[in-house]
Structures are given as C-alpha cells and as structure tokens.
C-alpha cells in the first residue's frame, strides 16, 4: 500500500514540476521514488493486509507484482531517457507514466470489482495519451486512436460482465463472489455465465490474446518505441496479474466450464501469433507478435488451477520483461541511428557495435527459449505445469509454435551478423542497463528456483 501511495504522490509532484520549475530534478526524483516504492513493497512482504474496507488487499502475490511492476518501470525509465530529456512535455510524460504504473499496481492488488475497473481505466487513459505523444506523426495519432477505440470498447464488455455478476451474486467483493459462487454453484442464473464470458472478453482484450489481439500489432507499431516497450512489459504484466486474480481466485468454482474457452484462446493465440510473426519485416512488429505469443504460454501455465502456477507465472513475467526491455533498448538505439525499425536496419550490427549485437542475441535467444537462458526455463516450467494436468495436446502445440518462434527470432540474429552494413553506428543507449538486464537473464536461467519459490505458499 505504501508503494502505491508513493507512486501516486510522485505522479502529482511530476505534474507540479512544470509549474514550480524543478524539471531538472525530475529524473532523480522519479528514480528515487521508484526505488523507494520497490523497497516499501519488499518491507511489507509476508504481512498480507487489507485497506479501505477490503477494496485493495496487499498479499504476497500483489506485493511481488508491485515490486516487479516498479522494477520494470525503473528499467524502462532508464531505457527511455531520450523520450523524456530535452523534450517538450517532459513532466507531463513522466506524470502519465507514473499514473499508468499506479493503475497497474491497483490492477494486481484489487479485491473489489470497482477497483479492478478503476485500475484498468487509470492505466488505459494514461496510455492512450502516451501512445499519441508523438503529435506530429500520423502513425502515432492513429495508434492512439485505435488503442482508445478498442480499449473503451473492451471496457464496455468488462463493465457489462461486472454488472451481470453483481446481479447474480449481490456483491463486487471478489472474496464474497467466490463464497457465493462456491455455495450456489449449480443454481446460478444464466446471465451470471453471460457476465463471466463478458469479463473474460474484456480482460482478453487487455492482455491482447487472440481473437481479441487485432489492435495490438498496429498500436505497438504506431506508438513511439519507448511507449511500445512500456506497453509490452509493464502493461502486459499488470493485465496478466489482473487476469490471474479474477480467474484463479474469484471464479475457480465455475472453472471447468471456462477451461474450454480458455483452451480455445490458448490454441488460437499460440498459432496465430507465431505464424503471423514469421511474415513480419519490422522488428517492432515481430516483438509485438512475440508479446502476443508469450501470452499464450502464460495462459497455458494458468490451466493448472493450483497456487503453484502463480510462481511459474511470476518467473515467466520476470524473464519475459527483462528480455523484452533489453531487445527494445537495442531496437531504440538502432532506430535512432538508422531511422527505421525494419529487420534490414539491423544488417551488420555486429561489425558496427558488437556489444549491442551480443545483447540483442541474448535477448532474442531468451525470448525464443534456448537453454540456459531465463526464457527457456520459463517455457519449460509452463510445459511441465501443463503436463502435470494432462494437457498433452496443448503442450505439443506449444513446443511446435516455439520452434516456429525460433525462426523469426533468428531472422533478427542472422541480420546482425551479415557482412553487408548500412547506416551509422548506434550510440544512444544505456550500457549499464543492458549489462544488468543481460546478467538478470543469465542469472534467472541458472538459478530459477529462487524466484519461483517466492510465491509458493
């Protein structure tokens, strides 16, 4: 809770920075507050507590995700320095980013459907603006507009679902809903199930799983690269946290009926995302489709309806976010020097800047799931978890689609080691951040049980 208060306070302070004229201090202030939020989150560890009449509950799951979200934002803030410094609207952008983070924290710690709705909206409204923050570019405008239309459309479905579930159970509190559904499992009215499907549709939009993914590649491509990185790491983690909280805690009594729908979503997500990614020529779009594909693997872990899936989910999110931010940092450096995000702008990167090329290779290998990197253990644990619950067909499909994945990740790697070079050498990037992220990817791959053990009760 303290972490959330610090983040909200920081948001207001950033808004004031423009008026009170301390913009120069803003970067240091944001970094300090994010570190403070992480520390405060860790200090609360092991003492679950409810606030404001059970509106939000910070248990170990929420605290772990809060700390992860703040860490991702911190890494992202270092990566996106060129997006903030020496730009107009620096304080506005910081404030929007911080408010999006506050929304994300609410999304992983809500205990009441009202908070879920508010969290999603605080996150989304900030992001609509951030997606369109490159005002002179039509692509950025178009991305913002599409994101806005699709986002509010999904919110409509989510709200209708919440309203119908409220009508059937008489409460917005997810623990009360759980108890009610548990006691009256067979006699729930039909509109309760309609409501559940609508909540599922609304949240599937937010985590961008197929068939509700069509907005994601366009929005990811049109937004400025730092904002895309933010969307595919921080926002995705928060949305998946909310998804897990709703479907693993609240609606477990009715899960059997929904497993079939979720299975269909997993199959579609794995196949469509990975196959479409093969045809992409822009690295930004490849990363967009890869982030959709990873949602499929994460949902596969959630098919196991016991608490241990949460540890696997957390590990997967850490591994995925570290590799994604590293990849986006390199992509941003290449984009700043060559002006394009196409695969061919990576041609000969190894001969121009070996450091960047090696980091990008490690990030891509981790995303593709090559041992001994973090991504491999993420996928391995997901498959092991699914096999425990006898989803053999889904696991085979998962293995086949990750083989397809290797093809498009290697497209980028092969381009980097080609002899022919083009464009100038990328210079604008944070070497420290890339070294840290690479170490995280390697360390997670070597000692995976530390992170997984965190969330096993």
């Amino acid at each position, binding site marked *: 809770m303290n972490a959330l208060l610090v983040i909200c306070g920081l948001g207001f302070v950033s808004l004031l920075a423009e008026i009170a004229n301390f913009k120069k201090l803003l970067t240091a202030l944001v970094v300090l507050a994010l570190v403070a939020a992480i520390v405060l989150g860790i200090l609360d560890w092991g003492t679950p507590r409810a606030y404001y009449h059970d509106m939000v509950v910070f248990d170990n799951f929420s605290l772990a995700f809060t700390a992860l979200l703040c860490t991702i934002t911190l890494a992202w803030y270092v990566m996106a320095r060129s997006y903030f410094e020496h730009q107009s609207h620096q304080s506005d952008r910081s404030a929007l980013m911080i408010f999006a983070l506050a929304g994300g924290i609410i999304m992983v710690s809500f205990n009441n*459907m*009202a908070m879920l*709705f*508010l969290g999603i*909206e605080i996150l989304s*409204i900030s992001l*609509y*603006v951030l997606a*369109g923050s490159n*005002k002179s570019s*039509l*692509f950025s*405008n*178009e*991305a*913002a*507009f*599409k994101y*806005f*239309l699709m986002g*509010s*459309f999904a*919110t*409509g479905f989510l*709200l*209708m679902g*919440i*309203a*119908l579930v*409220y*009508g059937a159970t*008489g*409460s*917005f509190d997810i623990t009360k809903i759980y108890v009610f559904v548990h006691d009256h499992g067979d006699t729930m009215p039909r*509109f309760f199930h309609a409501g559940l499907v609508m909540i599922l549709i609304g949240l599937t939009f937010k985590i961008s799983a197929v068939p509700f993914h069509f907005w994601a*590649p*366009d929005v990811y*491509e*049109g937004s400025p690269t730092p904002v895309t990185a933010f969307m595919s790491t921080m926002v995705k983690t928060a949305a998946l946290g909310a998804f897990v909280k709703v479907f693993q805690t609240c609606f477990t009594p009715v899960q059997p009926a929904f497993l079939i729908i979720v299975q269909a979503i997993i199959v579609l997500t794995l196949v469509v995302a990975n196959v*479409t990614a093969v*045809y*992409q020529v822009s690295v930004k*779009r490849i990363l967009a489709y890869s982030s959709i594909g990873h949602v499929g693997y994460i949902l596969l872990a959630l098919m196991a309806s016991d608490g241990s899936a949460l540890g696997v989910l957390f590990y997967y999110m850490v591994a995925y976010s570290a590799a994604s931010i590293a990849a986006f940092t390199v992509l941003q450096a290449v984009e700043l020097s060559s002006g394009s995000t196409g695969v061919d702008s990576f041609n000969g990167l190894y001969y121009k800047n070996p450091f960047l090329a090696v980091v990008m290779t490690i990030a891509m290998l981790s995303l593709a799931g090559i041992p001994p990197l973090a991504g491999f253990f993420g996928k391995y644990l997901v498959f092991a978890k699914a096999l425990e619950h006898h989803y053999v067909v889904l696991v085979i499909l998962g293995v086949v689609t990750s083989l397809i994945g290797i093809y498009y990740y290697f497209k980028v790697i092969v381009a980097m080691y080609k002899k022919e070079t083009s464009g100038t050498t990328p210079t604008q990037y944070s070497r420290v951040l890339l070294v840290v992220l690479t170490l995280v990817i390697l360390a997670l791959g070597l000692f995976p049980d530390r992170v997984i053990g965190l969330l096993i009760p």
Partner: protein
Amino acid sequence: MIPIDYYLWLSAVLFTIGVLGVLYRRNAIIVFMCIELMLNAVNLVMVAFSNYMNDAAGQVFVFFIMAVAAAEVAVGLAILIMMYRITKTTDINILNRLKW
C-alpha cells in the same frame, strides 16, 4: 413495480445497439456515442440490480462509471482533434496506414 427482466432486456438491447454501432458505423463521433450507449446500458443494469437487491453499492459504481466515461471521452476527443488536424476528416476508414 416493474419486474427486473424488463430492465435487463432493455439494457441488453441498448448494449447490442452500442456494440453494432461501434462495429458498423464509420464516423468517429458516432462510434464515440455508441461506446457511451454501451456504458449507459451498463449503468441501467447496475441501478436496476441495486434497487432490486436494496444494495447501494451498485449505484455508487454507476458514479464511478460516469466519472471515468467523462475522462475517457475527454481524452478520446482530444486524440480525435489531433488526428483531424492532420487528416481533415472524422471517417475512421482512414485508419488503415498500419496494416499487417
């Protein structure tokens, strides 16, 4: 007292009109209005259930929805104006520059 089914059917119809409007209309402003229609259908369900169950929580939720919808439209219209300055149209068929 009017049975609750009537409210539910009315809001289901309103919600469906809203969804169809978002999917079929090509004018951005009308699409905005259709999204609002969806949200207002939700409000109607909430208030009906709230009254039916004698529980104030549903009506409080409606205030949240109204406030958030207002904020959302403010941002949405700003984005639309930004786009209109470049394209000089509110037809959403122009949103086809980003394609897979």
